[in-house]
């Protein structure tokens, strides 16, 4: 008897996740193409897309690898891009916390921006959902996205291997990053953080080992948080 609402939750999650195919497909293709153009093998592209499964961090790592940045800097920068996921993890914990460990472990693997966004919106609008329904909705919303990401990365890598490197895709990574940043500029605090990041990164571009970027990122994070705190009049929510 309990299966009907769970099937229904899964179906609703799946439908909510369907539009993300339109995001994952071109983005995955682009990572595959740019990755192979930069010198990765198809297997290495797939290693990134299957094991890391976080587009922005993958592009960031790729760029720094082309700059021959040190290992530690590449890893730290890619992980800094993904730190926001700790926030997702924390905000999902009250909803998915009662699930068995292996299900939470699997949920963590598919915790990407879009899955988080639709799931948390659903959970907060429907607090009466059981843990089974919540898990079904969550995994349902991830189902269209994850295989599309793998498949598109593979297709892109395969196509990229056939494109001659002189075909100037040099600006594909900058455009991708800028396209990700534009929609993020939704408050004064976000704009302040972004500007701090740009100014500091340019000013510190001469520092060895691409370390200027990490310093700029920390300063920008503090700037964003501080502007937000002041905009809220210093009151604690």
């Amino acid at each position: 008897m309990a299966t009907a609402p769970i099937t229904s939750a899964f179906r609703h999650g799946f439908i909510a996740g369907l539009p993300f195919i339109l995001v994952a497909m071109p983005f995955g293709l682009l990572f595959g193409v740019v990755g192979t153009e930069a010198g990765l093998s198809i297997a290495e592209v797939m290693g990134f897309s299957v094991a890391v499964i976080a587009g922005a961090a993958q592009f960031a790592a790729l760029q720094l690898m082309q700059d021959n940045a040190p290992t530690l800097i590449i890893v730290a920068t890619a992980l800094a891009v993904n730190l926001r996921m700790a926030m997702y993890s924390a905000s999902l914990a009250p909803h998915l916390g009662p699930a068995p460990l292996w299900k939470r472990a699997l949920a963590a693997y598919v915790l990407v921006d879009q899955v988080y966004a639709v799931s948390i919106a659903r959970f907060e609008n429907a607090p009466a959902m059981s843990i089974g329904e919540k898990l079904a909705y969550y995994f349902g919303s991830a189902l269209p996205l994850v295989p599309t990401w793998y498949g598109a990365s593979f297709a892109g890598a395969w196509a990229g291997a056939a494109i001659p490197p002189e075909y100037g895709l040099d600006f594909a990574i900058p455009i991708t990053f800028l396209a990700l940043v534009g929609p993020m500029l939704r408050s004064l605090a976000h704009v302040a953080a972004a500007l701090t990041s740009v100014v500091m990164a340019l000013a510190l571009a001469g520092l060895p080992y691409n370390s200027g970027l990490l310093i700029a990122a920390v300063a920008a994070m503090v700037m964003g948080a501080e502007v937000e705190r002041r905009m809220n009049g210093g009151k604690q929510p």
Partner: protein
Amino acid sequence: MNMSPAHIWLLIALIAIGTYLIRFSFLGLIGNRPIPEWLLRHLRYTPVAVLPGLVAPLVLWPEATGGTPDPARLLAAGATVLAGVLTRNVLISIFAGGGTLFAALQLFG
């Protein structure tokens, strides 16, 4: 890039493990404990703190022109951000930027 496959796989493994641990953190190990407000406030700004700084030198000093600022790429960068701010849509922004770059390279190149 001048990296051995072993080095590339090491990077993939380290980034994958680190990313997984970030995702698993509160769901898995820390459990139901609430995350402090000041920490949430900083985490909110991580992507917008890293990505613009990463991209700024690439836009201003593109490798393709040997590091000389290039009007076509600056224009394309501006169009990408503008489209993103106006439409809030990543794909539209990518196409706006790519289209602008293509047109500007035809025009100036």
